[in-house]
């Protein structure tokens, strides 16, 4: 673990009254190593480490009696602060039905997350409707329908219509049936596919969802920054759902995306079952990233 590695470094450096620049770099290198191992983007890692260095040197912890512990404390605090956000709730304000849209790369967990959100909101007393707006992937609509059936949530959509028409019909039907929330599942897409990015921009423009959530696989590596930035710049979103956190991926992508886009991580998907959705806990994520 990082704690062990830092303790080893400081053991070797013991007996020095004040650490040289080179020795400070040795300590910082261990932190950078741990971050890269955890898939934190290399530019974000560099920036993060320099902030830690500034604090560590400024607070003179490097010469303290327990330097490793103190450095870890700073690293952890900096990370929890960076990962945390005050805007973690879903925005339910505005005219009904409240519309939530899920977007993201192929296979990131959108369809499952849509159903999970529906179940979660239903348990909170809301009346959601699911909209299957993925008309490309074979049996995508069926997939959402099977999940909707499991939780007793109505699913609209069909593969023979256009996504904009599907959403329009769904919103009308939702209002008529008294549903206060509409959750739109969209097809997986590449951030460099301008046509597909246009599609979700159009849905956004016309239906003004109160909440647009980007789903990202927790095992995503360095590319997470490119993806998050592109979705932010071309469509913009309100929060991130980090998925497959029940695995052993360290999840450094979370830190990278938060640092680079400023968007909060709102939910953590921790399994394939529909109840496997949790609020995002920055302190747990920080411990996980640091291994």
């Amino acid at each position: 673990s990082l704690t062990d590695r830092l303790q080893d470094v400081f053991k070797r450096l013991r007996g020095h009254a004040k650490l040289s620049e080179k020795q400070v770099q040795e300590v910082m290198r261990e932190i950078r190593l741990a971050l890269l191992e955890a898939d934190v983007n290399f530019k974000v890692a560099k920036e993060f480490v320099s902030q830690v260095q500034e604090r560590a040197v400024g607070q003179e912890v490097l010469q303290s009696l327990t330097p490793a512990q103190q450095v870890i404390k700073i690293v952890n605090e900096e990370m929890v602060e960076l990962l945390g956000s005050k805007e973690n709730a879903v925005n339910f304000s505005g005219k009904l039905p409240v519309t939530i849209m899920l977007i993201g790369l192929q296979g990131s967990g959108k369809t499952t997350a849509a159903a999970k959100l529906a179940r979660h909101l239903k348990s909170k007393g809301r009346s959601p409707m699911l909209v299957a707006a993925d008309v490309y992937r074979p049996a995508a609509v069926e997939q959402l329908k099977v999940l909707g059936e499991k939780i007793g949530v109505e699913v609209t959509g069909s593969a023979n219509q256009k996504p904009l028409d599907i959403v329009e019909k769904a919103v009308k039907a939702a209002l008529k049936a008294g549903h206060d929330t509409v959750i739109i599942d969209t097809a997986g897409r590449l951030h460099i596919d301008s046509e597909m990015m246009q599609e979700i921009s159009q849905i956004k423009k016309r239906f003004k969802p109160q909440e647009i959530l980007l789903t990202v696989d927790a095992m995503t590596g360095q590319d997470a920054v490119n993806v998050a930035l592109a979705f932010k710049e071309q469509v913009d979103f309100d929060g991130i759902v980090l998925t497959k956190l029940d695995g052993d991926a360290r999840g450094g992508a979370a830190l990278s995306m938060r640092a680079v886009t400023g968007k909060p991580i709102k939910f953590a998907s921790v399994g394939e079952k529909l109840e496997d959705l949790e609020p995002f806990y920055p302190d747990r994520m920080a411990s996980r990233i640091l291994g």
Partner: protein
Amino acid sequence: ALAARRFDEDFWENAEEILISADVGLPMSVEVVEAVKTRLTALKVKEPEEALQAFKDVVAEKLSVGETGIKFNPDGVTVILVVGVNGTGKTTTIAKLANYMHEQGKTVILAAADTFRAAAIEQLEVWGERVGVHTVKHRPGSDSAAVAYDAVEAAQARGIDAVIVDTAGRLHTKVNLMEELRKIKRIVERKVPVTEVLLVLDATTGQNGLIQARQFKETVGVTGIVLTKLDGTAKGGIVVAIEHELGIPIKFIGVGEKMHDLLPFDPTGFAEALFS
């Protein structure tokens, strides 16, 4: 290294960063840089352009492990077991692979052994119809190994060349699911050896890809990797570490969501793309 001194620290740091940003990982990136330094010294290289070529060559060589192409069973049905964590592109890859083999004159049937995930069987069936191959399936929730076994039996009865088995996505950390995979292979091998176990890896995956490869290899013996979603911006550099440590060849790459978006792996092309 003498040649290395012709290039300053910035040059090597920049090279390391290109590798890291491609998900090659820090330890492997350091190893690649060292290999290049050695090579440049030996070749007495002076120009940065030649150094870039050395990087591409070193990476391409590291990725030239093992044989590409599907290993066919000389004495019977060829069984290809497709495995990997959730959402990497297994089902879509199977459709592409069936199409590829079909175009090469092989007869293929599919086994819908993902009996767990919502509409997984339907998804594979739609693909099977598009490709023009039969899909063996049971009811959702039924035993995966039984589906695979039945598919092999059907292939044997009809003289079909190959069976491609679709399995449910599973995290390598889930012991019972990894055990199920072992069971599927074991049950099939009562009939014929499984000549190919393909691990489908998403190119956007970071360092966890190496852990996935280790676990799947240990559990069910991976004979090849298919690296998907290379049509995105992720470089898939984790395969360098995978091939280096585990010696598993990359057999194909996925470059899109359509039937023809599967290409045989080309180490030179991959190395070229990594540094572009």
